[in-house]
């Protein structure tokens, strides 16, 4: 069984470590915040200028002056701080953020990523994605393994305009978990009930399959 979006977020949450500063992209990555292990201290950064972002406000307590990078109303936790956009990207480029999770349209077996532009379609812009992928030391991409047409999104080469080169370290899809290694996508874990064969058939990029690939534990 392929993972649900919630399960993908749950799996990524296992990459969190105590004391991490984390930037979560829009979409599935945002859900990761719901699965921080109890007792673990993790601080969420939002690139529009927050450290210590809290959950959505209670109804009626929304503050138009307090939003996240997805433009959603949020709250602040004790110990939070607010700063301007240049300081925010100073900390991103300065590699102070220990983990960045973001979605993608395509990833290659050398860690290239494309997630901002589809030629011929309306281009909304890269937002902070190019800064994040060019700077972060620890980037996890979270995406469906194949597109709606069933074509692999784990490729030898991106077909779409790039967001960054040789930057992705790990990929979590609905089918499995992969490290980007010099030899390509190293299959670390399978989604429960998903076979190595299915993953092989849906992966266009170079795939390294160890002799034993455990099922992921959620």
């Amino acid at each position, binding site marked *: 069984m392929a993972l649900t979006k919630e399960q993908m977020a749950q799996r990524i949450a296992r990459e969190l470590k105590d004391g991490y500063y984390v930037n979560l992209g829009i979409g599935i990555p945002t859900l990761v915040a719901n699965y921080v292990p109890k007792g673990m201290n993790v601080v969420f950064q939002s690139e529009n200028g927050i450290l210590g972002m809290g959950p959505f406000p209670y109804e009626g307590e*929304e503050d*138009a002056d307090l939003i996240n990078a997805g433009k959603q109303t949020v709250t602040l936790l004790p110990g939070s701080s607010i*700063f301007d956009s240049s300081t925010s990207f100073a900390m991103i480029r300065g590699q102070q953020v220990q983990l960045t999770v973001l979605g993608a349209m395509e990833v290659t077996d050398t860690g290239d990523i494309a997630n901002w532009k589809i030629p011929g379609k309306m281009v909304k*812009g*890269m*937002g902070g994605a190019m800064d994040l992928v*060019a700077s972060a030391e620890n980037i996890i991409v979270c995406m469906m393994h194949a597109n709606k047409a069933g074509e692999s999104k784990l490729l030898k080469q991106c077909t779409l305009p790039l967001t960054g080169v040789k930057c992705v370290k790990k990929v979590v899809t609905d089918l499995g978990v992969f490290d980007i290694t010099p030899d390509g996508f190293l299959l670390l874990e399978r989604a429960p009930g998903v076979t190595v064969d299915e993953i092989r058939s849906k992966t266009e990029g170079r795939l390294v399959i160890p002799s034993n690939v455990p099922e992921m534990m959620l």
Partner: protein
Amino acid sequence: MNKIVANADAALEGIQDDMTLMVGGFGLCGIPEKSIAALVRRGVKGLTCISNNAGVDDFGLGLLLQTRQIRKMISSYVGENAEFERQMLSGELEVELIPQGTLAERCRAGGAGVPAFFTPAGYGTEVAEGKETREFNGKMYVLENWLKADFALVKAWKGDRFGNLVYKRTARNFNPMMAMAGKITVAEVEELVEPGELDPDEIHTPGIFVNRIFKGEGYEKRIEQRTTRKRN
């Protein structure tokens, strides 16, 4: 030192067709609502607007798109705006997309007298095409130039007649850097206070960067994505 002007219309004195403007805000948060409304009244055309986003159809910079006053947008993300999409696809509107951190740093550089700097963002992508690249400590970087504007329009929470500004929460965003980079910087505030009421240690934008300041009345502060959780 008194930089207070009566209202937004007085504050925009001197803005002409084809000028380059910086406009603060992230999404609809911290945008200079009153200055944008005054720009519509002023009717200037052919504007180049540097702003992280482009507003929504009927608010923020979207208002200036409706009236076709913008010739070119320089932004990092321009979704959520049907009129924008129409003008862009039809070629009426020119759009330059810049990585958000690069945009922020280019504005700061304009204000800080730094004509160019190296950033890793966009290396190996179309953003770096035609730009100088260079390796430092084994990593590749792209040379980016400063951005400046004829006018910078920013929004703060509180301000005084010296032009000192304090922002509230994430309404700060691009406003401080843009305030630095405007040849003339216009600040609109929710509250005008007496000099000395703002603690010198807590001022976000020192008054030297601000040329004109006015109090806006009745801020709408529209929320783009109202997200809440239920009380237990």
